């Protein structure tokens, strides 16, 4: 399957119609989603209508948009008009359908993209695996016995399996980056507040971000550009002017790049560290940088997330705890009991830590680190052995992602395909609002063949 931009080119120049492209996507989903379980809802009828409208615009000589005819899908915590926003839960299934598309969904549609459905996730986004007791686990397309990662597992797997070229997810402590790494695709968590969260079910407002998954750097950059822009419907969304990233050069000669050491080289298996070395080597990077107190940042992110998540769902926890996924319920309940002083201390520490990172980014432009400490665990796996010790695997998956989303830094997870192994990710990290630098570095890595999204399509579908 070709990337989103090549599909859009083909649709605009009428090599294929948007309807043909949408039909092919729906056919691929029908053929493969049973074994993957990416989708929780399909919008076949409205997708074909939208596609026909795009074809009509083109026939009339109107410009149909940057993403004309590109099929896409969204994590089921994005509002889609006419669909109930599940947020991975059984409880929300009782809500009336959303009245209006989330801003991000509307902006993609305005750019000509065609929404085909909604995607599976961990309940209320509280997980790194997408093992959902109500809707089932999402399987990793590279090995069906393994997790796709979470909480945006459906979003990552759908791209990796070639079902659609583009999806949206959300990331609070790693929920875009972890599944992107496990599924071997690109996943962008932009700067906190860069993209509108209007119409997206929240989890922990201090850390919730939305972002895209795709199989090429240019797709990520284009979607990022389409999604940017202020939004009155989201008070957190920045009013800073948009920064175009899709037409940048690959000149990174003057960029100062360093490898995160200390915390970011411990607790990971050799393959995860080797992936970082591969990227560093390709960029001729030898310098290291220490991010201080990263373990405390992760701890503070955990306390804040547990508190905010529990507060959001407190009423339902009181009324109907039995309807929660057992994997989230006791964690939410415990979070409801956190003393205020712990929460406040964590928010104060966050300010301290943010100031340290600002100082660091005066001397470096891009930092690289592993996305996850290991490749995808087995579905149902509870523990792993690390340094001879048995530890709980699921919380450990956010080891390297949490200290970065804690202060809203922009991060792209780039996919490294291993010869005899599962995919891994490397995080490219920059100072706030410097997504352009990250995307330039990623483009260079992609051109050198160091990073690539291996899309597993089973048919000879040209799109």
């Amino acid at each position, binding site marked *: 399957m070709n990337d989103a931009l090549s599909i859009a080119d083909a649709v605009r120049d009428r090599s294929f119609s948007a309807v043909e492209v949408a039909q092919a996507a729906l056919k691929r989903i029908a053929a493969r989603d049973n074994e993957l379980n990416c989708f929780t809802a399909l919008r076949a009828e409205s997708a074909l209508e939208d596609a026909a409208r795009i074809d009509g615009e083109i026939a009339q000589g109107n410009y149909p948009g940057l993403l004309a005819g590109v099929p896409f899908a969204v994590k089921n915590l994005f509002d889609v008009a006419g669909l109930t926003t599940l947020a991975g839960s059984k409880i929300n299934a009782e809500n009336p359908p959303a009245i209006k598309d989330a801003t991000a969904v509307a902006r993609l549609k305005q750019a000509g993209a065609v929404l085909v459905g909604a995607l599976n996730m961990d309940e209320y986004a509280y997980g790194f695996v997408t093992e959902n007791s109500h809707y089932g686990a999402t399987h990793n397309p590279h090995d069906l016995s393994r997790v796709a990662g979470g909480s945006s597992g459906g979003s990552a797997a759908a791209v990796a399996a070639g079902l659609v070229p583009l999806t949206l997810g959300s990331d609070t402590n790693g929920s875009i980056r972890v599944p992107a790494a496990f599924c071997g695709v690109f996943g962008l968590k932009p700067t906190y507040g860069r993209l509108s969260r209007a119409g997206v079910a929240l989890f922990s407002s201090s850390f919730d971000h939305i972002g895209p998954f795709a199989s090429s750097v240019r797709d990520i950059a284009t979607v990022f550009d389409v999604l940017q822009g202020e939004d009155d419907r989201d008070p957190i969304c920045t009013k800073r002017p948009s920064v175009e990233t899709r037409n940048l050069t690959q000149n990174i000669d003057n960029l100062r790049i360093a490898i995160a050491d200390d915390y970011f080289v411990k607790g990971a298996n050799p393959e995860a560290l080797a992936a970082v070395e591969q990227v560093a080597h390709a960029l001729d990077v030898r310098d290291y940088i220490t991010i201080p*107190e990263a373990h*405390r940042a992760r701890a503070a992110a955990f306390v804040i997330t547990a508190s905010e998540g529990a507060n959001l769902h407190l009423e339902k926890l009181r009324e109907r705890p039995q309807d929660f996924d057992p994997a989230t319920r006791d964690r939410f*309940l415990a979070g409801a009991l956190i003393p205020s002083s712990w929460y406040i201390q*964590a928010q*104060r520490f966050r300010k*301290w830590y943010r100031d340290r990172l600002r100082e660091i980014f005066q001397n470096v432009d891009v930092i690289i680190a592993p996305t996850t400490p290991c490749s995808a665990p087995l579905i149902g796996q509870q523990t792993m052995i690390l340094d001879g010790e048995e530890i709980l695997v699921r919380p450990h998956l956010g080891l390297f992602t949490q200290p970065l989303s804690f202060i809203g830094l922009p991060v792209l997870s780039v996919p490294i395909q291993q010869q005899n192994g599962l995919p891994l990710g490397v995080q490219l990290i920059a100072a706030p609002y410097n997504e352009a630098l990250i995307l330039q570095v990623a483009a260079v890595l992609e051109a050198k063949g160091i990073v690539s999204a291996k899309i597993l399509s089973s048919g000879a579908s040209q799109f």
Partner: protein
Amino acid sequence: MALLVDLQLPDEYRDGVVANFERIKAIAEIVNSFELPDDVESAPIFEP
């Protein structure tokens, strides 16, 4: 503590909640044990 937030904790969840709370407590201790200067305030500024 659960009574304070009006959470009637069913017995079957008690062990799980206690275990999770112990985890949170240990993790919060990592934050709480860090000496922060008094003038470090949390970031959000309320706009009246």
